[in-house]
């Protein structure tokens, strides 16, 4: 039986492969499922969908994989997608902590939820050639009171030839009608706006450019270096982690002039972000003073804003540089050994 050619790339199964890079809570898993399901049930294709499963919590990096093939191809493997034709990035901050474009084909498509231009994303992502599609999915989702996933699906359908927008649209309708009927129309609108509001730019293939290869992560710890029984000797080493990609567009802004140093924020913060220092006043008494926020760990829950009795803490729509410019680092007693 002949198999139709569905992409230009050279995958074994003649497949089109899509990888969605996201953080838990943005609906990338559901988006991947709906795209693959639309492929199988409405676009005359065969499909496979899985995700990176662990004990991922909301806000932690996740990946969803969609593999589409001609209908007569048997998809056997369950392995993740390493050389995608398309990458969808649901949260721009992921470029900081994940190699989102790893393995993307030289003529691949990168769709990003961002307020930036394709040129800016090209610089941020390091992508040399291919198509960059920018869509402000967060803004659409905020306005429509939905999640970014359906807006991203709209943008994907606009630029990925194999995806039939009508089929995907109907899949969204079916999915929401079954589970959350009240959200159906808002999600269809979100999809349509994602489709309509893309900014696309093509960067022509260049023979001199080597695409970023996918490198399977190898754990730094191995059978010669792991302490027996899985013990971790490096207590508190989670301070090495950067959790800023967990934020979904907002962070607490701090103005020290308004602060009465009551400690409420510190007490309710789930992520130990507040930095304090003892200071002695002119009467020789020592008090604790709030210095600021270690944004490396802030997930943007805004509980601190909720309990702040003054205007010292307030909600801010996050931009690129605020956290960078206002971060106050914890001075932990770190040592190597």
């Amino acid at each position: 039986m002949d198999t139709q050619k569905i992409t230009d790339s050279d995958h074994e199964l003649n497949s089109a492969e899509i990888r969605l890079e996201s953080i838990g809570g943005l609906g990338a898993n559901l988006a991947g499922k709906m795209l693959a399901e639309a492929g199988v049930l409405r676009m005359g294709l065969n499909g496979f969908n899985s995700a990176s499963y662990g004990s991922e919590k909301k806000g932690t990096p996740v990946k969803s994989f969609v593999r589409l093939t001609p209908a007569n191809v048997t998809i056997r493997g369950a392995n993740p997608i390493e050389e995608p034709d398309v990458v969808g990035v649901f949260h721009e901050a992921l470029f900081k902590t994940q190699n989102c474009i790893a393995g993307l084909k030289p003529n691949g498509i990168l769709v990003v939820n961002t307020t930036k231009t394709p040129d800016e994303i090209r610089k941020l992502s390091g992508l040399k050639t291919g198509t960059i599609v920018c869509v402000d999915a967060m803004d659409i989702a905020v306005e429509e009171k939905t999640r970014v996933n359906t807006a991203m699906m709209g943008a994907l359908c606009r630029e990925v030839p194999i995806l039939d927008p009508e089929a995907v649209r109907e899949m969204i309708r079916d999915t929401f009608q079954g589970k959350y009927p009240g959200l159906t129309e808002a999600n269809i609108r979100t999809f349509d706006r994602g489709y309509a509001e893309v900014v696309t730019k093509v960067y022509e293939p260049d023979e001199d450019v080597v695409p970023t290869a996918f490198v399977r992560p190898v754990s730094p710890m191995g059978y010669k270096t792991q302490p027996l029984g899985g013990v971790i000797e490096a207590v508190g080493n989670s301070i090495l982690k950067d959790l800023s990609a967990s934020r979904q567009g907002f962070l607490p802004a701090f103005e020290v002039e308004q602060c009465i140093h009551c400690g409420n924020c510190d007490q309710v913060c789930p992520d130990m972000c507040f930095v304090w220092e003892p200071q002695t006043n002119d009467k020789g008494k020592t008090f604790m003073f709030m210095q600021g926020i270690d944004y490396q760990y802030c997930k943007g829950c805004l509980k601190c804003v909720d309990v702040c009795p003054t205007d010292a803490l307030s909600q801010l729509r996050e931009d690129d540089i605020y956290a960078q410019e206002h971060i106050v680092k914890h001075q932990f007693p770190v040592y190597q050994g």
Partner: protein
Amino acid sequence: MAILEPEIKSMHDSHEKQPDGLYEQVTDFRSGNEMAARAAAQINYHVMGYFPITPSTEIAEYLDEMKTRGEHDIVMIPADGEHGAAGICFGASAGGGRVFNATSAQGFLYMLEQLPAQAGARLPMVMNLVTRAVTGPLDIRGDHSDLYHGLNIGWPILLARDPQAVYDMNIMALKVAEHADVRLPVLVASDGFFTSHSKRRVHYFKNRDAVEQFVGPMPRNYHHVLDPKHPITMGPYMNDPDQINSRYQHSLAMYEVERVYDQIAEAYARLSGRSYPKVEAYKMEGARVALFILNSAAETSKDVTDELREKGLPVGVVSPNLLRPFPKKAIADALAGVEVVLVAERADELGAHGANLTHEIQAVLQEVGSRAKVICRVYGTGGREFYPDDAEALFQLALSALNGEEVASFDYYGVNPGDPDAEVAHVRLQPLTKEETSGFVSVEKEESTGELKVKVPSMRALTGKAKRVAPGHGACPGCGIFPGIETFLKGIEGDVVVLYQTGCAQVTTTGYPYTSHRVNFLHNLFQNGGATLSGTVEMYFELKRRGEIDTPDDPTFVMVSGDGGMDIGLGSALGAAMRNHKMIILEYDNEGYMNTGAQLSYSTPLGHMTSTSGVGPGRPGKSFQHKDMPQLMVAANVPYVFTGVEAFAMDLVRKGAKAQWYAQHEGLAYGKILISCPLNWKAADDAGNRIVGTAVKSCFFPLYEVEHGVTRITYNPEEKDERVPVEDWLSMMGKSKHLLKAENTQVLQSLKDEVERRWMRLKAKHDNPLL
């Protein structure tokens, strides 16, 4: 992938030509867990006794969802743990009806003692084992170590390699289980995550009638304990010389399964168009090298086989669909003429020079006089991915052996030595000093009254006290766990040793190779924290008595558990309480099993929505009232019991201080803190503090303490004129808002009555020290 025989396929096509026929099938896009639930719903089992464990949990969730839509009538019983779930299934099967369950990993092992007992009692049922690693450091991903523990329990085992097979095997399994020549419980094993969570194109019967017709009516001519006209004694006391005869019957039945399975699989193939031979031999004609491998990885290996065959290499894949009984003849036939067999095993039989199936293959080959070389490679444990190039590497290894090269008969595949200079292994925080954690809070016993006087500085001053948890953990934004635990710990001076039971707090702070803990931390299995920390406490005091440990001060021992851990671990916690060890049990209650995806716990309030207590027509969420764990601990007569929330911070700090005093001077202190879970409470990330505060003010979660049996309410919203209706609290969460709708008036009233009844009792206790 099932084999589509050409003739079967044509039959299938003829069914497709009759779309209104009984056996019409629909095409869908589903995961393994969804297909297990679909099959169970279509069979319409009488009873499912279950306890959530990743990655099988979804099966109960999907069934709950389907029940909300009225798609089946299965009575779903949320057990207190897998041991309890297995008991429910045993009892239900003894009652003569159809019984279903699903589990994984440690959950499977926790029920293990029940499983040979049920098989020996010849009580049929079907259980899905969604395979997952069983190991020391907690691993929730897929391998076959749990399955290998099931090889000796006397249950027939069917393997399901993809979501389609999960559906088909579940339907065939019941027929095997109930067959007159078998009468045994049957296991259907599919790969955790690789099959359970990945979605594929599948087909299933459109009408439940087709499935009902195939499995047939439940056989009624067997013993059960619900027939008053024919009373029986099930489960006698049977030693020698009789037991060996019962065992022999069981053994004979196991070997009958091969024949019965063949019949059933053939009949099923005729209806479905999908054929599942006991052993699948892929491209084995002329193969000199075979890869023997189970389930999803066998599928991955087939694509590689195609490629290698195109290059002229004589390779093939052998993978069983029936694992127990071991289909000896079919395997010998499939491997006839093969010179090298590489048995790839996703689990190890440690110390046995090869894992279980390697030895079974060796035995089969020896019996038929084969001189094939058998190589064992343990691969993919703990969920390590199996890529096509891994399959290729294994084939190349076997081909090397074929070419006469030296190849170790047993080894691991896919391990790495590690990087001795890795930053993550070397960057650490200095141990907390006494100065960083002491001198903030004091507790003194007033000799005349026996009352404890607690002195606590301001919250501002307490910001100077070092936290025992470092930043960088992976909990959700707005998680209430750490404010709850850390506020409590602000009351505790000096060094602490913590034990976290399995749950969100454990997995988000200890994702290897990172830890957020700055103090000594210990984790053992989900249900056993009470016992485990008892052992650590007693070891400390004995080492100290013998002068074998040198610590300036006694540490305070704190066990931290979610409400889930206090369900499955209730016995262990009560045991520790009865023995009155010098330790603290701190329960963070987020009203559900949030770590596994928000299933109901016994602490979930009446009517609240979880992923196993759905809300729909005629189903207003959880069907029974919330557990009152503090009062259970009061009944255990421990010296100190308290409740607390982050929203009443100073109250909680003070209770922490008292708990430490009791744990140092008298024995076990227990406290329950209500903490928010914005994700699964369906509330805003910033709302947690307000919600738990409102829960207190509504008297759903009163703040009180019990010292030596004497109750004292520490915050009475009525006296402060701050009491709010229960509705105010319910309206703050998406999981409980529906209770305010007119159709749920009765449920709401019932919850309010229970809240009021418990509050009134508490006030009476507060007023009377003898209560």
